[in-house]
């Protein structure tokens, strides 16, 4: 008797039972169709047979396939699992005597050629502060959650692994499509005075340069390695411990009616994903202006291109106070706050709003509500 996997163009892979032994397997009742006779046989995962005297047939549908029988499971067969075909031992019309295995077949583990690769490592800067909080790696395809463990590391200037620099991986911080992996540097070593900080020092305090290394052995969602690994080297600069201050940004507002681009120059590089998520352009009523935003490499220049010619204002640039720089300092608070410094006190706002002034420069409002003026 032959057992073969049958992968249709679309849909679920089926198991086809055929060959000379099939007729013996089924009752030779000429009036019964093959599908009716299929009630006498069942497919089960072989592992379930080993552990249970009772057979619960795997849910699915039998149909005829030429001279054979086709079993299409309700849920897809699992790669790497062995399946058994079993026959009900009541051929003589007696009460069910249980089931006997007649054949088994392994569903092969998935093996495919590598196709996925690293498409970006953020931040896209040449320097990072010594108190860098996070890095992220973006892949070209969905990845396997859990695959980063042991395959993403930080090296120092001499190419040596920096132990315990990255926060222990589980759970890995993947975005919804599992294409972007966020890596946190151990916060307990960054915050001054905490035990890991005093015992081990800040993770980047002993090196002038770091390299993020992504091994080619990371697996994508179908279990394949990457086409190639990736590396990104940064020079380490002094720690940054101050809030992100939108009032110090250089904002160039477009002229009404033009196709000019709204550009914002930050004071220092900001977190890429948060910068794209936390800045919005709206009219005075809060209605977003259609368009799209980008962040230049270097993570200091944000640009917004309106879908239509720039309309007559006034317009507002709304900054969510959750926006952070590379060291985790946000508009609201300093990540590693020195309680003695009044300028480090948290700013209790959800949003900072910048308006456009007559000459196109941002309105400085020393934390007062913003003036809303037309361009």
């Amino acid at each position, binding site marked *: 008797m032959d057992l073969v996997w049958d992968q249709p163009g679309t849909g679920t892979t089926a198991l086809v039972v055929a060959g000379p032994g099939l007729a013996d397997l089924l009752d030779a009742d000429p009036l019964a169709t093959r599908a009716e006779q299929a009630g006498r046989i069942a497919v089960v995962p072989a592992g*379930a*047979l080993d*552990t249970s005297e009772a057979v619960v047939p795997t*849910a699915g549908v039998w149909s005829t396939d030429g001279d054979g029988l086709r079993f299409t499971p309700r849920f897809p*067969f*699992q790669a790497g699992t062995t399946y058994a075909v079993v026959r009900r031992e009541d051929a003589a019309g007696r009460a069910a005597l249980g089931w006997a295995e007649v054949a088994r077949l392994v569903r092969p583990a998935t093996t495919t050629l590598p196709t996925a690769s690293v498409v970006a490592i953020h931040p896209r800067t040449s320097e990072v502060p010594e108190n860098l909080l996070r890095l992220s790696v973006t892949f070209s395809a969905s990845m396997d959650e859990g695959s980063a463990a042991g395959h993403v590391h930080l090296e120092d200037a001499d190419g040596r692994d920096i132990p315990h620099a990255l926060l222990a991986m*589980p*759970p890995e*911080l993947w975005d919804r499509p599992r294409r972007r992996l966020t890596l946190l540097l151990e916060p307990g070593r960054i915050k001054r005075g905490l035990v890991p900080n005093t015992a081990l020092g800040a993770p980047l305090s002993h090196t002038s340069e770091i390299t993020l290394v992504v091994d080619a052995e990371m697996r994508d969602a179908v279990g394949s390695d990457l086409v190639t690994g990736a590396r990104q080297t940064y020079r380490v600069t002094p720690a940054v411990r101050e809030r992100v201050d939108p009032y110090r940004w250089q904002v160039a507002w477009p002229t009404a009616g033009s196709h000019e681009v709204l550009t914002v120059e930050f004071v220092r590089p900001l977190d890429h994903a948060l910068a794209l998520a936390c800045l919005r352009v709206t009219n005075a009523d809060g209605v977003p202006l259609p368009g799209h935003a980008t962040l230049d490499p270097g993570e200091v220049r944000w640009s917004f291109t309106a879908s239509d010619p720039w309309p007559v204002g006034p317009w507002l640039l709304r900054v969510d106070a959750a926006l952070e720089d590379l060291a985790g300092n946000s508009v609201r608070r300093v990540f590693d706050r020195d309680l003695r410094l009044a300028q480090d006190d948290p700013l209790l706002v959800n949003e900072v709003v910048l308006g456009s002034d007559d000459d196109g420069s941002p309105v400085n409002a020393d934390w007062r509500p913003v003036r809303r003026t037309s361009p």
Partner: protein
Amino acid sequence: MPDLGLKTGTPDLQSAGPLLFHPDGILFAADVRAAAVFAVDVTDATVPDSVGAVDVEHLDARTASLLGVDRADVLVRGMAVHPSSRAVYLSVARGRGAEAAPALVRISPAGELTLVELEDVPFARVALDDPPSLDDERQDTWIDGTAETTQPFEYAGITLQLGRVPLARSTITDMAWVDGALLVAGTSNAEFTSRLRRIAFPFDGALQASSLEIYHVDHGKYETASPIRALIPFDGGRSVLATYTCTPVVHFAVSDLVPGALVRGRTVAELGPMNQPLGLVSYDHDGQEFLLVSGTRHPLLKIPAASVAGQEPLTEHLEPVGLPREALDHSGVTWMANLDRTNVVVIQREGSDTHLRTLQAASL
């Protein structure tokens, strides 16, 4: 049956989560990944002549066989008993980890397993409006060994199966039908993470949510982060009892669940540290109501329900421990659900096997 707002279609259940039956036999199935609850009419009209014990030996192997996977790829995520047919419904994760696909399995009173098909069934869906985002950097800790990140962790001579998961994996931890509404416990995107939502049924878009604060005796402090693990109605629906990891039992008056408020519960018992509660049920014996609490490490505990009313709130570190409790000699009990008021159906672990068993009140 009144109009329950159900429409025929195919519920797009993305993940297996807690289950609960509405008194009219509508199945509430929580979809943790989608942060939603489905109400499905499972049209299970059979009514048995009497309620007898339901038992299934090798439940895990039989469930795996039905779903066509290895035993290790089957994980029960919820259990509920149909109020009229007395069939046991299991919510099962098929496959591993966060990506496991859901399946619903029905176990008849005779112990036969069948798949609950969800094509062209009357259903409705409600989405939570406050779930943690999938990349929320906060985490929840599971010590039931079901997180794929589980590692042995030794503390004070005890080895725990400790796994950390993104907070979104605990968006929905349990549900209860209380005072004509669906209560959904779990975590939220808010600063005070522990959340109890009250959802009107039929689903009409009305969601109310309260953040919860409890005194955690073992930790010696008030906490707002740790979510409820198991929840039941109490005192005729005027209150709920909830239990948490490490292991406080807390009483909340339903009238205190003011939308948007931070609600402080009354901690009535501390059942002991380094334990994650798995099940909480109430049953009757000899005219008295009792509570059962199952957990990852502690034995099955029995508590007289009458002791809850007079229990002063626990607000001191470690001592006292509140309600009287008795450790029962039923080891390995994990999930529990009422077959009726005097029979509790449980999933019992025995070595590497699990079995479905019925515990009668007289044996408890």
